[in-house]
């Protein structure tokens, strides 16, 4: 009994359409004009949930999460995967008590810390030092605790020199590093992480992953939402796949990732429920929609459909390829201007062609990232799903430690054997190929 960290029973969350994606604010005018129907709603409210279930079939509502039950053991690292709008973030939000479930129940055994975004509550006018305390307090740390970890946080963020400078003068890299440093020093027994790894440069992402691995190694429980299949495969003991708010798969990581890949294929033409300002879908790599297997010597042709539904003056679109550790191996970017984007809502299909990359055999993921004109990191950042790429080839991954393994030709042009007393007697002369 005591080894359970989180128990979730029949958890459901219903959103009124309009309040889920883009909130539609009620005005007093609405209230007055809609007084009749509102009164009906008010009257309905105290009725038992049965009547709510009937109403739920009404198109006014969507279930972001529907009847989800599971248990997480202490020390387990669980990856949560699913398409945009599948309910991953809603699940984390309920578990971290940001929002209440509509039905069901969850029990959490232990102090919970959630990282749904780094830098929450940072104030641009305040200095790095002041923000560490403020952000720490917001994340639930006590002042004494922050005092104790202060030097460690500053060192981790590598901003010693600028600690008393207002963060509005920080570069975005410094800003994110500081934000993550504070978050990383939160010591909860249960950690909920949502896509934090999607921000920052490769070095920073690596640091995040390293810290995550460290946390997991310490026997703490982690729930980890990500689109990065490589990172999921690498870090998680088990995987939970959410599909339209329902728990579709629960278990072994490899099978889970595979299950997710197949389910995407099946549902490709079903648009996600929650309409976002920007969506990136219809991903294809060499004509395949997910999990493709290619030879090292194959060129990569990736395409996606970008839909922008909101006013966005400009953006930057990136096509990324990451390895299992989450290192960015390929980051190809284009400014919206170069793509012929004018600022008006648009849907366009974008294709990127690459020559053979000669990646060493292994698992990679390719995804797209769109960054809209915004002030701070994490702001107006949109990620696509990822396509897993299994690269196979002639090189033996065990003897290749780099990133690339191009086709190579080895030869020995001269060799003379010394008869001197050599302790390492067994020199194996490589054969010419």
């Amino acid at each position, binding site marked *: 009994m005591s080894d359970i960290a989180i128990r979730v029973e029949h958890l459901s969350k219903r959103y009124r359409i309009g309040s889920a994606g883009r909130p539609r604010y009620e005005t007093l005018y609405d*209230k007055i004009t809609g007084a009749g129907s509102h009164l009906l709603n008010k009257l309905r409210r105290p009725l038992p949930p049965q009547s709510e279930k009937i109403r739920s079939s009404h198109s006014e509502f969507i279930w972001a999460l529907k009847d989800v*039950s599971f248990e997480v053991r202490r020390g387990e690292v669980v990856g949560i995967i699913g398409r945009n709008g599948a309910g991953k973030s809603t699940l984390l939000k309920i*578990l971290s*008590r*940001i929002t209440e479930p509509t039905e069901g*129940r*969850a029990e959490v055994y232990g102090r919970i810390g959630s990282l749904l975004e780094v830098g929450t*509550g940072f104030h641009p006018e305040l200095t790095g030092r002041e923000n560490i305390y403020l952000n720490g307090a917001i994340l639930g740390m006590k002042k004494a605790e922050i005092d104790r970890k202060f030097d460690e946080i500053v060192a981790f963020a590598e901003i010693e020199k600028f600690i008393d400078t207002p963060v509005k003068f920080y570069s975005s890299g410094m800003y994110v590093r500081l934000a993550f440093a504070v978050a990383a020093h939160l010591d909860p027994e249960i950690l909920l992480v949502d896509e934090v790894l999607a921000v920052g440069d490769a070095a920073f992402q690596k640091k995040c992953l390293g810290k995550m691995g460290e946390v997991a190694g310490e026997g703490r429980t982690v729930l980890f939402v990500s689109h990065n299949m490589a990172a999921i495969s690498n870090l998680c003991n*088990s995987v939970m796949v959410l599909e339209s708010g329902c728990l579709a798969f629960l278990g072994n990581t490899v099978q889970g990732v595979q299950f997710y890949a197949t389910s995407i294929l099946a549902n490709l033409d079903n648009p996600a429920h929650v309409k976002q300002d920007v969506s990136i879908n219809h991903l294809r790599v060499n004509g395949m929609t997910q999990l493709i297997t290619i030879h090292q010597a194959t060129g990569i042709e990736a395409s996606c459909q970008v839909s922008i539904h909101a006013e966005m003056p400009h953006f930057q679109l990136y096509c990324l390829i990451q390895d299992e550790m989450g290192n960015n191996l390929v980051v190809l970017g284009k400014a919206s201007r170069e793509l012929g984007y004018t600022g008006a809502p648009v849907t366009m299909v974008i294709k990127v062609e690459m020559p053979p990359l000669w990646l060493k055999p292994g698992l990679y993921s390719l995804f797209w990232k769109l960054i809209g004109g915004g002030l701070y990191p994490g702001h107006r950042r949109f990620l696509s799903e990822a396509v897993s790429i299994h690269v196979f080839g002639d090189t033996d991954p065990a003897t290749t430690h780099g990133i690339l393994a191009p086709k190579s030709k080895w030869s020995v042009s001269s060799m003379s054997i010394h008869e001197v007393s050599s302790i390492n007697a067994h020199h194996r002369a490589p054969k010419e190929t």
Partner: protein
Amino acid sequence: MTANVEIETIEQTAVEEALAQPEVEAERPAAPIIVIEPSRGWVAVKLKELWEYRELLYFLTWRDIRVRYKQTALGAAWAIIQPFFSMVVFSIFFGRLAKIPSEGVPYPIFNYAGLLPWQFFANALSQSSNSLVGSANLIRKVYFPRLVIPISAVLSGVVDFGIAFLVLLGMMVYYRVWPTWGLLLLPAFLLLALITALGVGLWLSALNVHYRDIKYIVPFLVQFWMYATPVVYPSSLLGEPWRTIYGLNPMVGVVEGFRWALLGTNPPQGMIVVSAGVSLVVLISGLFYFRRMEKTFADEV
């Protein structure tokens, strides 16, 4: 991980949870356990949890104070300029031209002693009514008792009040007005002003999440409310029992209490009891209304 196969016999655990009291079952381990369930109807205020988050309250208040004056050229001088110039204008129009009586003390100091708690209240109201919407990114991403937000907005005004109070002390020396023993009750009147501001602030901040009209209503409300409060005139213009009934506006008791404590004008007698009662009702109802609406904040703010 195992899928939860054993379905518990209790079907609607949700309905039982009316009072949001976390239930700890006996066989569970000693580790802190959080039960997450939908709440229905009115819920407990959870003051204990609020107390656990007192450091966050402190940091948010401190942030508000720090940020407010950080980029202004005159800094904390604004806390003096606003009430002082209001006093100058009121003294000219209401004191000099309209010759409104001021209960035996010079009109400027009579007016300023009323403006002090009034400005505190008015600022607290506009700050707190907008506080939840202004902290939307926090509310959507982190859990903490949401009460912390409007409370810190109200508390951050106390510093401004303190600065403006120094001017009053200077004026008292200048006009040679000496306080009475009533001065000892001044903290109680300040507390009453806090309670009133917080009560109204809780209502407005929670309403503002649903009805963004509140943002436009507040400036009007503040202006009308000031003229409905004896800031520029004394409540002694009314006879009894009207003066006591006037106390239904809780700021009447606060303002008159301030004047009496500082300047020895007519004591607020019956009206202070009425005002204190009303302001407690507003605070308690505000707390419950806020807690009731709290669950919708993250989804709607």
